[in-house]
């Protein structure tokens, strides 16, 4: 048995039935990290062994007496480096926060710790989660474990690479415009962008507050469901978390496919889509029909405006979220004569090109004289997109489509043409704009052997149904 190839739930079962000890599991992962992280650069920082094994011993003692605090008790986890961990560096992949030690844990970190999971390390990501390739990190480029000449996707590329490369059984990512689902698709793993408000954002360092949502990334939908059950639920420290939300998985043995109406937006299957991805989706829909699901054609006419709407909203929010990094209170501080010079140099040195581009764009769309033409208009289009989804859901229970127009591109291919990179977010950003849950699942490979992802989009707060459907999906 190769420990690092087990899914998180398989690992938990081994631990809970005492066939494996947590120490053995940690040994295996630390060895894998030592062997492969230098090449993959999945982690920015790995937790020190001493404290990690000490915590493992405490949890082991509980497991030994049958005190199992969660379905994933004893299982190690990797956490994207935009999520605050008390006393452990949290960099956002930026020089700006290179030495930032948060004094507090994010709510979701508190929850994974309360579930007796073990933090392995903090994973690489695009700077402040801005990017689709994990190439904009100050701490190096993460490689796709399926083909190390290719990007893992982004911005949660480190988390995706850690799971796909067997450097962690499961991970937390964040998704503002596709940052969990797209790297999951590129790396051939599963990832859930939960309904906005289902998971607390307290301690998730904001990129675009109205779109950001943390979620699970695992080897399959079942692992994602287990982790989602641990992190979701209301949080009084986040006013945007859904007050009444509770995770209620469908009963064991339920057959979610039979009778389910699956909507496919015609706009999703345009010529821009890589033909092998379209073929894979087509063959999957045939199998779904064979298993009793109904395929319904739906329409999302605003899809053409989705990417500009997303980038206006996201940049507007990020420019104010990132204004606090002035080099005075924490983070990278340049030595300069005057206060003004300190601000300018700290920010110029601290932020990379992509961050600067989005901060500039955001300041532009919010500035007086342009606000109505850009921000207000984007807000209206966002509402239209939400309405279009609600209308589509009148005739279907779930929407199915691709995650990205292509499989993983080569390293260096995307950054020269940011517009093309932004356009590749076409299938994912509407889900964030509408606040819906979106699940990315591996469903096949292209002729280069690169993973192809499938996206299931659910109604608000139907994350559990989406995950159950994902578990029941036939393999391609």
């Amino acid at each position: 048995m190769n420990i690092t190839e087990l899914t998180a739930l398989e690992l938990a079962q081994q631990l809970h039935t005492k066939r494996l000890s947590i120490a053995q599991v940690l040994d295996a992962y630390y060895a894998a990290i030592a062997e492969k992280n230098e090449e993959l650069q999945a982690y920015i920082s790995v937790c020190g062994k001493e404290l990690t094994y000490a915590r493992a011993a405490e949890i082991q003692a509980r497991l030994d007496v049958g005190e199992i605090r969660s379905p994933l008790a004893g299982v190690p986890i990797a956490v994207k480096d935009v999520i605050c961990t008390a006393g452990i560096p949290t960099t956002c992949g930026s020089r700006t926060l290179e030495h930032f030690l948060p004094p507090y844990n994010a709510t979701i970190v508190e929850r994974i710790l309360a579930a007796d999971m073990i933090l392995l390390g903090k994973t690489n990501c695009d700077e402040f989660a801005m990017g689709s390739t994990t190439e904009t990190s100050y701490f190096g480029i993460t490689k796709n474990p399926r083909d190390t000449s290719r990007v893992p996707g982004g911005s949660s590329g480190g988390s995706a690479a850690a799971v796909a490369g067997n450097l962690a059984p499961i991970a937390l990512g964040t998704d503002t415009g596709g940052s969990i689902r797209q790297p999951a698709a590129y790396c051939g793993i599963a990832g859930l962008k939960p309904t906005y408000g289902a998971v607390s954002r307290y301690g998730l360092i904001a990129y675009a507050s109205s779109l950001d949502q943390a979620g699970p990334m695992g080897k399959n939908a079942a692992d994602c469901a287990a982790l989602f059950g641990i992190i979701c639920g209301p949080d009084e420290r986040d006013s945007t978390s859904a007050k009444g939300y509770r995770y209620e998985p469908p009963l064991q043995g339920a057959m979610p496919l039979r009778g389910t109406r699956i909507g496919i937006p015609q706009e999703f299957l345009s010529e821009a889509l890589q033909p092998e991805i379209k073929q894979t989706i087509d063959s999957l829909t045939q199998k779904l029909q064979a298993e009793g699901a109904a395929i319904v054609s739906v329409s999302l006419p605003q899809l053409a405006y989705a990417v500009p709407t997303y980038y206006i909203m996201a940049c507007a929010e990020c420019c104010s979220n990132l204004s606090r990094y002035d080099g005075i209170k924490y983070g990278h501080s340049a030595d300069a004569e005057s206060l003004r010079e300190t601000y300018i140099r700290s920010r110029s040195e601290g932020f990379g090109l992509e961050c600067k581009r989005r901060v500039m764009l955001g300041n532009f769309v919010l500035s007086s004289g342009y606000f109505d033409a850009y921000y207000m208009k984007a807000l209206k289009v966002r509402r239209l997109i939400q309405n279009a989804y609600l209308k589509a859901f009148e005739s279907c229970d779930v929407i199915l489509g691709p995650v990205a127009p292509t499989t993983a591109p080569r390293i260096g291919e995307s950054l020269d043409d940011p517009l093309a990179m932004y356009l590749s977010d076409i299938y994912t950003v509407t889900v964030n704009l509408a606040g819906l849950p979106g699940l990315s699942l591996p469903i096949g490979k292209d002729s280069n052997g690169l993973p192809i992802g499938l996206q299931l989009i659910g109604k608000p707060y139907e994350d559990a149904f989406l995950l159950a459907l994902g578990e029941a999906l036939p393999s391609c």
Partner: protein
Amino acid sequence: MQYETVIGLEVHTELSTKSKIFCSCTTQFGGEANTHVCPVCAGLPGALPVLNAEVVERAVRAGLATHCTITRDNKFDRKNYFYPDLPKAYQISQLYFPICTDGYVELASGKRVRLREIHMEEDAGKLTHDPYADASLADYNRCGVPLLEIVTQPDISCAEEAVETVEKLRAILQYTNVSDGKMQEGSLRADVNLSVRPKGSQTLGTRTEMKNINSLRAIARAIEAEAERQIDLIESGGAVTQETRRWDDDAGESYAMRSKEDAQDYKYYPDPDLPPIHISEADIERIAESMPELPEAKKQRYMTELGLPAYDTNLLTSDLALVRLFEATAKAVSDPPSPADYKEASNWILGEVLRLASETATLPENFAFSPHSLAKLIRLVKSNTINRNTAKKVFKEVFAADTDPEAYVKEHNLAMTTDADAIRAAVEAVLAANEKSVKEYKSGKAQALQYLIGQSMKALKGKAPAPEVKALLEALLR
């Protein structure tokens, strides 16, 4: 040419809630620098604001007390600007949907100063410059203290009206327990927007804004100086520039800070961290029912029910601390108090109390004595235990250190003598020693009696009831 001044005010008031607007840190004034802070109010990455419902409650109270329309669906907006006292680099405020709109306050003249809006926002930190270290230090204790900004229409035409408007607002905010209104601690500060125009003109002149003026006296001085400056400028052929100015109260002058061209673009947009807050009809009804008596209503009641003169009621109701002192004192004299008790309490407060307060520069909310001590003193006079002159002397002790007047009178043997024989003996001795005055009195010179009363009181060391002494003298002289 004759000019008239057009003034609008923006009054910022700190709310007297226990905790800050978006976190549970204390709002207490002072404290060691950066000890009343948490990740939320210090703006640490990842921290999120959670609205303190008490702030909304108080904003609604302020709105109802000033005849405003309450906005049912409220939102917060981000006001973006870089300044070292603002750790998030944006202030959470309300631009698009302020919580209260279209109200007014009524001045004593009956003139109404219209309120354009009242909105909720968070305060910023405090910067101090350390000249020795040549460094500016930031204290974030005040960050996130809830503020209301009350914006008037340009309805005010002179310094007196501006001061009265602020006084009225201050009293309303105190009565409704929205704010403690302590201007010296910065709980209440005002920005003054001012322009001048030829008398009778309907068009507004170019205005300037003077920021953060924190005393009534400074507001009056700033207005007078700025109106004069603008008129002088126009008279000498110049033009007023639209700009923000800083009023230096020590120098009695204002200085230009920045012109309209340099005005900040605050890039306001809805704060995505705070969902809209709905205020229902039931919420408003509940708050309206719990509203205390407001200054105007109290004034009317004091006049009609207690029979106090208009002048007295105006003074008493202008400050909630005085109102509390007045009502508690009267009640402690006798419960329920008689009209005479109210009048007596009012006389004491408007007389000796305010005189000593002004002498010692003590604000009513900081008085050392309790209403009970003042009431005891009033009872001592009422029961003829001491006379008024003695009482005033005793009150000095009460005012300074809340001395118990009964104990003090006893200890210093100030109580009036009730021994009729002793009084008679003293009076007879005075008559014997002042034959000249006795003669004068008997020949019809009435003032001579006053002299004899004075001499008798002196002989009795002021410890006899004056009316009794007078009556006895008159009887003996008959």
